[in-house]
């Protein structure tokens, strides 16, 4: 007789919170850092990128979850990439048609969403093993988590590096911003500090709960 390994029931709220907070793909799992560094020069870019990634995550998770029993093991990777690339192409065309300024700002990083670690990691580790609804929720949650992390870094970089937020000058026109924050070096610094802060806070909360 075959005994089945007991699977834990997946709770949707748990999945949602995991993706946004506890297992945030950028700040905790440290995935998808390349597009973060490159597109976090302004908050507007950040929102656009975040929405694009969430769109792709949502749909690709759903499709991959629907097809998880049909996709043969050996062509798994090829099949996932085809599906993800399909949706990235769709969002690329949509952006070019309806939001062309955002599309040209983000430039080559929209096509690079295809090889964004986050999307492939969620497809491989979650969508291929769970049902459609949890996968959809996970897609949205990770997308939101990514957007939040990206927005935090972008806001810091835009304020310090350009003196503006969403294009509005907040320090007055004569403010001399630290332009280096907009260079890749500034990006690394900002991302590093944000991650360090998050680790510090979660450690404190963890200790507080235990003691």
């Amino acid at each position, binding site marked *: 007789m075959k005994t089945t390994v007991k699977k834990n029931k997946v709770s949707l709220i748990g999945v949602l919170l995991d993706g946004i907070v506890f297992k945030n793909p950028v700040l905790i799992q440290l995935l998808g850092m390349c597009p973060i560094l490159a597109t976090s*020069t*302004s908050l507007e870019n950040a929102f656009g990128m975040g929405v694009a990634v969430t769109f792709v995550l949502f749909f690709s998770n759903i499709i991959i979850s629907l097809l998880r029993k049909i996709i043969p093991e050996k062509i798994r990777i090829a099949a996932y990439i085809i599906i993800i690339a*399909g949706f990235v*192409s*769709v969002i690329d065309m949509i952006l070019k*048609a309806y939001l*062309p300024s955002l599309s040209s*700002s983000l*430039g080559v990083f929209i096509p690079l969403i295809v090889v964004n670690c986050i999307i492939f990691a969620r497809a491989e580790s979650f969508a291929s093993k769970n049902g459609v609804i949890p996968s959809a929720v996970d897609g949205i949650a990770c997308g939101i988590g990514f957007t939040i992390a990206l927005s935090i870094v972008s806001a810091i970089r835009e304020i310090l590096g350009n003196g503006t937020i969403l294009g509005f000058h907040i320090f007055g026109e004569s403010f001399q911003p630290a*332009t280096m924050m907009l260079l890749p070096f500034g990006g690394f610094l900002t991302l590093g500090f944000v991650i360090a802060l998050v680790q510090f806070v979660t450690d404190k909360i963890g200790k507080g709960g235990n003691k």
Partner: protein
Amino acid sequence: MLNKSSSKKSVSTTELKEIFATGLKLCIFMSVICVMLFFVNSITAEKIAEFESKKINDAIITIMGDDPNMTIEPLEDLGDSSVKEVYKIDSMVDEQSQLIGYCVYAKAKGYGGEFNLLVGLNADGTVKGISVISDSETVGIGKKVLTDSFLSKFNGKSEGVTLGSGDIVAVSGATVTSKAVTSCVNSVLDFYESTLKEADTDENNG
């Protein structure tokens, strides 16, 4: 070590079937995705082309002025490597077509990739104005170059422009973009000298 026991040349029919079936599955995924892309493309392609041409038209009007008698005539087969399209701008006054100038849609290689400028030329070949069609420069650095305060410095220039000489100084911290704009304007001016001027003279003489 390669496992030879089951993958010898004598592949059984069930294995062949499995190979073909798996390949077919991948083929089906690919086809479905392709069809989906095809349909999305057919919906958006028009809008994309429309938008691009609208942007150019708007830029031409901004540079050359909003003249109700103005006609915009795209010239064919004239572009060289850096020039994408050329438009001849005429004005119909009393049924006489008078040359106002040219608008050259040219590309330049900036920091964040290729960007596109529309350079408006007067009838005498001097720069009338420059408009940015698309770019991926960094906010706060490269984008500062692509603003009227820098681009308007090129107005009235007719020959090779050098950065740093006289009134055109590169924007500090954005040298690459500044140089790209300068070399683009220079190539447009060269293009005028080499191609457009003659065509113009031919027309006047002929």
